[in-house]
Each structure stands twice: as C-alpha cells, then as structure tokens.
C-alpha cells in the first residue's frame, strides 16, 4: 500500500517569517481548516476524541516532567565519549 499525503507547513520557517510573509494569508487559512488532526477529531465520537486528547497531553506532560527531573549529564564522563561508534 502506498499513501501519498499532500502536506502543508502550518508555521513560518524562522522567527522573522510568521508564515504569511511569503504566502497569501487566505491560502494559509484554508490549509489550517483542513488540519488532519481536526478532521480526524470531527469523525470520532466526541468522548473518544476528548479522551485521546487527554491521553496525548498526559504523555507529553510526563515526558517533560521526566526530562526536568533527570540529572544533568556529567561533562567529565561524556568527554571520554567517541564521535564514532567502534566495532566491539
């Protein structure tokens, strides 16, 4: 099976390019309305879509909390690392 998905960049490419500097605002708006996440949510039962959203939010928040709680890497230990993977 081959899926060809025509995609569109929602946001700009840099801090200066807000996303509408090089594209018509109307075109950006049309694509935002076709956001596949919104369209998928629209065809799911409302409670399923809401539950999925809560689940994904929780996963992301847990990952952020894990990262915040993790110790900083130790420069002295990492300095001994190799830039290439050596064969064992």
């Amino acid at each position: 099976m081959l899926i060809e998905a025509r995609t569109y960049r929602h946001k700009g490419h840099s801090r200066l390019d807000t996303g509408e500097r090089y594209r018509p605002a109307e075109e950006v708006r049309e694509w935002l309305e076709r956001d596949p996440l919104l369209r998928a949510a629209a065809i799911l039962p409302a409670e399923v879509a809401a539950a999925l959203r809560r689940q994904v939010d929780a996963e992301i928040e847990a990952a952020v909390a894990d990262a915040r709680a993790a110790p900083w890497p130790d420069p002295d230990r990492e300095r001994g690392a190799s830039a290439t993977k050596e064969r064992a």
Partner: protein
Amino acid sequence: VRTLSYREAVTAALAAELESDPTVVVLGEDVGLGGVWVTTTGLADRFPGRVIDTPISELAFTGAAFGAAVRGMRPIVEIMFGDFLWLVTDTLVNQASKYWYLSNGQASVPLTIRTAVGAGGRFGACHSQTPTGALLGEPGLKLVAPASPADAYLLTRSAIRDENPVVVFEHKLLYGRRGEIDEEAPVVPIGRAAHLRRGGDVTLVAALAGVEKALVAAETLGEDGISADVIDLRSLRPLDTETIAESAARTGRLIVVEDGPPLGGYAAEVVAVAAEAAPVHVARVTMPDLPLPASMRLEDAALTSVEDIVQAARALVESGAVVG
C-alpha cells in the same frame, strides 16, 4: 567615530558599500526584513531592489550570486548559519574559488559570503559549527573573522571590495558587543592580524570569540608574572605569517585557541607557520573531537575557556622548556 554593536557595524559596512558602488547587491533568506541576526535592518527600504529575499535554497542563490559576480556585479550573500555553508560548497569551492584560474584570468569573482558561526548559543550540533577548517585548504578563497565591532565594519568592507570570493565569519555571541567604529578609516586589503597586547613569555593566538578569552587569560597570567603576547588573527586565509612567526620566535611558546574540533583547523596551521619559522613549544586549546552536544551543560564544557588557556600557558612556562 561612532559606538555601534557588532551587528550594527555589519549593517553600516553593507550600507557604506551599497552606497558607494551600484553593482553591490545583498541576497539571502529574510534579508529584506533585516535577517534573523538583524544585520540588514533598513537596507531594503534604503536601497530598493538591491536587497533581495531568496527562497530557502542556499546553493541556488549562491550559484546565482556567483554568476552575477562573474558578469560584473558585487553580490553579498547571507548564509543564515555557517552550518549551511556545506550546501554551497560546490559553487563556492568548485566554481567561485577557481574561476579566475580556470578562465585564465578572464574574470574574477568579487563575491562576499557572510555567515553566522559559533557555539554557545544553544543551537545544537547542526547550527553551531564554525566551518573554517574545511575552507582553509581552498586556493582562491579568502576567509575573514571579525572579533570586534571595529573589525566587523572594516573586514566586511574589505571583503566586499576584494576581487576574489571572501567568506566573512560573524560570531553569533559577538553580535551584541559594542565598540567604536571609524567610518573614515581606510579600507585596506585582507591579510593582517592585530597585535592586541605585548608580552615576552608566551604568544596567545585566537580568532572570533576566542580573542576576548585570550585577552582575559593574558590578564590572569600577568598577575602570575607571565607576560603574554595576544594576536587576533582577523584573516584566517591568508594567515599573517609574518606577525605569527615574529611573535612565536620571540616568546618561544605558542598557544592557539580555536572553538572548533582539534583536527584540521586554523590552530594547526598557525602552529605549522610558527614551527616552520623557528623552534617553538606549542599547545592548542580546542573543543573536544565530538559533534557539539545539545545539553547546555555539555555545550558549555565543550567550549574553550579562559581557564583552559591559562592552564595551557602555565604548563608551557612551568615545563621550563626553552628554545633557541
């Protein structure tokens, strides 16, 4: 004489050359809005049609600039991050740097490429490099590296006026530094280093953000009774062999500071230049032989530091090794 930031000095240099020469044009991503480094602010309004926003295809617009340069224009290309120089190496190395030779002198390539380089900005491994080493071995190219607002102004103007392709390496962490620039100063050819401090015990050579660190290290060493010569390279290609060789031969001890990997950089070339001229004890202060880590703690540890320079200089002096 005006006091400007490093980034304002770049803008002032571009404005001065746009003003004085109608063949000068500026190309790059978002340059019409001032660019992500805020170095072309106001130029699109002041010089209509000559400051051109390009699509995100470095090879395409640098290739266009190469062609324009061969045909008599004097284009200035902004490559947003030095890391993207890899995308333009074909036109830069295989075409622009060799064209004068290949055409038997029919046309030179007065192309200037400006690019933001340097680690310490939390940009990760692919947006923090200073890709000077790979270009050091390319005949036909010139490479300049301003360490101060004064040089951001002067070296940029020298680069634009040069008849050959020149890459100007601008350091991200220096853009906010302020200093005096002299708009009346003559625009001189590329190739001279600057002797920033005189001392007889050890020579410290640096470029870009390393220059500040070398100057602070020299102060610290001075408190210990070790007097340091400090040289800002300014031009990485050609290297100012005369200034390097004179200082290293006089002090007999040479430390070169480079915020880049240890192999194949300008530090190695400076050491070679000095050693070919006279016996000298040498040490290089560089980053580890690794891609830049993303963690800010690891990034800070990877950068060269004042302490690294002080320790390297003390070790050379305390080893008691004397040459000549």
